[in-house]
């Protein structure tokens, strides 16, 4: 799995090799040559190389950049209180190297979550958790969750939280001046982004554009993809995905990119979660059902509602999500159990929010099997989407992505920014919800998946703000013609006809066309 793939791989590889060595046909051969032979014939070579690759990645992330996070499980248990299942306080896993602004944001956010959870408890007059048996007993039967109960939070709450002014009153330096981003860290420039995303240059053929124009290109990509899948080496898969994955191969390529090997252990864990869903009811279940029941593109997604609902309910009960998330910077609510121990609520440690289902719906076009759907959803959350719900000054988290968006806008679409400010429309307020949903909230499934191909391939959430800016750039003419806020909202509200890849290509690939468009 995601944490220590190497351990499991190692023992597997060792076992296979040992078993082979015991076979009589190797009796007279030298051990080291046999090992080599076994490794190459059994396809273990790619596995080992992948393990090493992963190990290196872990090392790098531990030593490089903003690091030194304190213990993961520093749930603050100091405040005491009555027994039973009850919210004590929200707690952030202690982090001591953060900017003041970030620390304050987190505290405030945690308080808000806690408040909302308490309110939810009151409105529903239900405990956080109860068994179905209890729920079906007389005591609870009459009580249904009232429709008005609100979600713990939604994308717009995150935007508000980011935009809230610093409480210590000091005159902050928000750059660019119109921006809402409360922190100032170095973000990549457009030139750096162009170099990093060189595979998206205009002259590179892309799945998502060229396959529609030229049939042979799709065939070529499929053939290439099958070759790389057979080899199985992760960096090759990543390189391949940067130019998009043909829909027929996406399921397998993504499993590889997310280092997912689903075996008996995973299947039985999932069925445990399924039985937990029947056994235990969580206070937030109704909210998650409501979230799944109203996908934004109902025409496209309605057939998957029941599937996504199950995924969400299982996810919230999955304590592995909490254990495996090494550095979750999103807030976790902590409840005190009957035995006095502090446990995250819900067990996954991820406070349910409105829009959680958006990350699952596009995947339904790739994975028909609930198990695969679940693990891919979970892996994507842990690796990418959780960062969009985390306040931190580390790269590729909500605040830095927000800042990247604002700086790219400022540097490249100055006239648009100025115009929008005049109309009293904030670009970030429009774009941040797109970014937070990984664009799943605004794009149809095929375009969302083509975008996520690149996010996975480049391992880069930066593409989200880049795409947001590219959309503003593409619609510049209309925005500049708009004379009121409603008009702008209307222009930017329907993105369902956009083609992601050409947008990214034009923005990242061609400096001249961009500047010339600005001049016009």
């Amino acid at each position: 799995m995601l944490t220590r793939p190497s351990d499991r791989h190692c023992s597997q590889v060792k076992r296979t090799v040992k078993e082979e060595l015991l076979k009589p046909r190797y009796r007279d051969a030298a051990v080291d040559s046999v090992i080599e032979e076994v490794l190459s014939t059994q396809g273990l070579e790619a596995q080992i190389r992948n393990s090493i690759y992963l190990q290196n990645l872990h090392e790098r992330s531990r030593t490089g950049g903003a690091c030194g996070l304190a213990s993961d499980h520093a749930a603050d248990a100091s405040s005491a209180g009555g027994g039973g299942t009850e919210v004590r306080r929200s707690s952030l896993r202690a982090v001591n190297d953060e900017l003041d602004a970030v620390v304050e944001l987190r505290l405030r956010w945690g308080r808000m979550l806690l408040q909302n959870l308490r309110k939810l408890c009151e409105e529903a007059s239900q405990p956080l958790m109860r068994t179905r048996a209890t729920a079906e007993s007389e005591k609870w039967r009459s009580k249904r969750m009232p429709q008005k109960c609100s979600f713990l939070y939604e994308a717009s709450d995150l935007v508000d939280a980011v935009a809230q002014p610093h409480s210590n009153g000091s005159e902050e330096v928000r750059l660019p001046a119109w921006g809402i981003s409360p922190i100032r860290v170095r973000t990549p420039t457009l030139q750096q982004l162009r170099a990093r995303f060189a595979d998206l240059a205009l002259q590179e053929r892309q799945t998502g554009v060229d396959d529609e124009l030229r049939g042979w290109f799709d065939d070529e990509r499929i053939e290439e993809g099958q070759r790389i899948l057979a080899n199985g080496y992760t960096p090759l898969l990543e390189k391949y995905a940067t130019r998009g994955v043909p829909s027929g191969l996406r399921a397998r390529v993504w499993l590889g990119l997310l280092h997912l090997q689903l075996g008996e252990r995973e299947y039985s864990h999932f069925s445990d979660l399924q039985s937990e869903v029947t056994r235990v009811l969580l206070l937030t279940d109704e909210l998650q059902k409501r979230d799944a029941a109203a996908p934004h593109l109902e025409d496209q997604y309605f057939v998957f509602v029941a599937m996504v609902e199950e995924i969400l309910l299982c996810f919230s009960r999955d304590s592995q999500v909490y254990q495996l998330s090494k550095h979750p910077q999103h807030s976790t609510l902590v409840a005190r159990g009957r035995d006095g121990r502090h446990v995250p609520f819900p067990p996954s440690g991820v406070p349910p929010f409105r829009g959680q289902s958006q990350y699952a719906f596009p995947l339904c076009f790739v994975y028909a099997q609930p198990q695969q759907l679940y693990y891919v959803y979970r892996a994507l959350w842990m690796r990418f989407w959780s960062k969009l719900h985390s306040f931190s000054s580390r790269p590729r988290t909500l605040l830095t992505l927000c800042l990247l968006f604002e700086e790219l806008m400022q540097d490249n679409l100055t006239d648009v920014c100025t115009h929008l400010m005049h109309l009293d429309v904030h670009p970030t307020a429009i774009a941040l919800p797109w970014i937070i949903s990984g664009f799943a909230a605004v794009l149809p499934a095929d375009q969302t998946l083509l975008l996520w191909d690149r996010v996975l391939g480049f391992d880069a959430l930066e593409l989200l703000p880049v795409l947001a800016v590219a959309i503003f750039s593409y619609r510049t003419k209309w925005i500049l013609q708009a004379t009121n806020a409603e008009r702008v909202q209307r222009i930017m509200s329907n993105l369902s006809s956009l083609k992601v890849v050409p947008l990214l290509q034009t923005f990242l690939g061609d400096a001249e066309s961009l500047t010339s468009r600005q001049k016009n």
Partner: protein
Amino acid sequence: MALHTPLRFRTDQEKYVLLSNFHKRGWLRSPDESSEWNVFFASPHSVKLLFSAETRLTDAQLVSHFPNHYELTRKDLMVKNLKRYRKELERLHAERGVEPPPDFDLIPTTFLLPADLAIFIEEFKRTPSSVWIMKPTSKSQGKGIFLISRLAQVKRWASSRTAQQLGGKDAYVISRYISDPLLIGGKKFDLRIYVLVLNYRPLKVYIFKKGFARFTTINYTNDFSEMDNELVHLTNVAIQKHADGYSATHGGKWSLKNLRQYLEGTRGTAAAATLMEEIGWIIVHSLKACQNVIINDKHCFECYGFDIMIDNKLKPWLLEVNASPSLSTTTASDKMLKLQLIDEMLDLAVAQHFGDASASARPATARRRAPADAAGGAPHFELLYDEAVELEAERARRDETAGVARRKGSAPPGRWPNPPTRRGFYAPHWS
């Protein structure tokens, strides 16, 4: 031929999607019972009256059905025609000594009741655990359909009917129930595909790209205790719209484009393409099956609603063909779809029958046409099968080999019906 514009239309269906399309073209309505019309968009019943009255249609008249379309659209006759067609093809292949017809089960095993009761009982005894579905031959919208799993149920049904009821319109077909349908999100669905036939001999077939899948509102189960629950088994909108979970925003309808995208993602591009092509073949074969019995009246065109189900192995099955697919609209996108369907269908039919004269009947603001398009001017239709192309090729081949063949004394090739081949078949893209 030259036509006076505007055209006159007559219809016995007060449907928005029809009337707005006539209106848009500036056509004038001719009164009911009048014979002064150019285009008659008629219900099957009116068509029956029209042709039984032995009125002679003029060259400037066009009707929306073939006189005996029921050879295809009545469940029992369709089964008969398909069975005969299959036998003919098998014989043809045997005579020519070429490979036997490919997997040719277009429909699940089906018997006519009460006529085939004895054969059915034999078949049932061979597979006692199977489930069968009973359908009245000439009802639509899921009326009168039920499932049976025990022989006693059929016998009881048969004995409860008087001899008179069992004749004619009250006859039933019984088919093996497809108990392993492809499920998406746990739900069963079938496909509704619109097919336009302008001519039966030579056969020319267009399909409308915007077909859709119709989903049940509740999850599918093989559990026999749910056998009486129509909501689990029948996908008809007429039935599903009474369910609790029915939504008026999407109406349980999913576009073919979504289906294709889903199948490509979950089953692979090749499997999805094969399925889509096989669906095309089912349509062509079923039309070929009644090509010789249908009266190929040149004043007729017809739009069929093909109902197709896909099983879990991605094999498509033909369920039935509707002569007058519903023109009622349930949702906004449904309305749009049916407006386009009628619009382009009229374009194609009128252009074919009246020639270029129709162009002038359209207002100048009309949509731009793509002249190179196989379904010229109808962007949402695609040509599925054109027998004329095959006949042309066959003729050329025969001319070329005639001398050789005569010398060798072999049988002259090309006896009717020719099995359809790839030459005249255009694999549908649906997008």
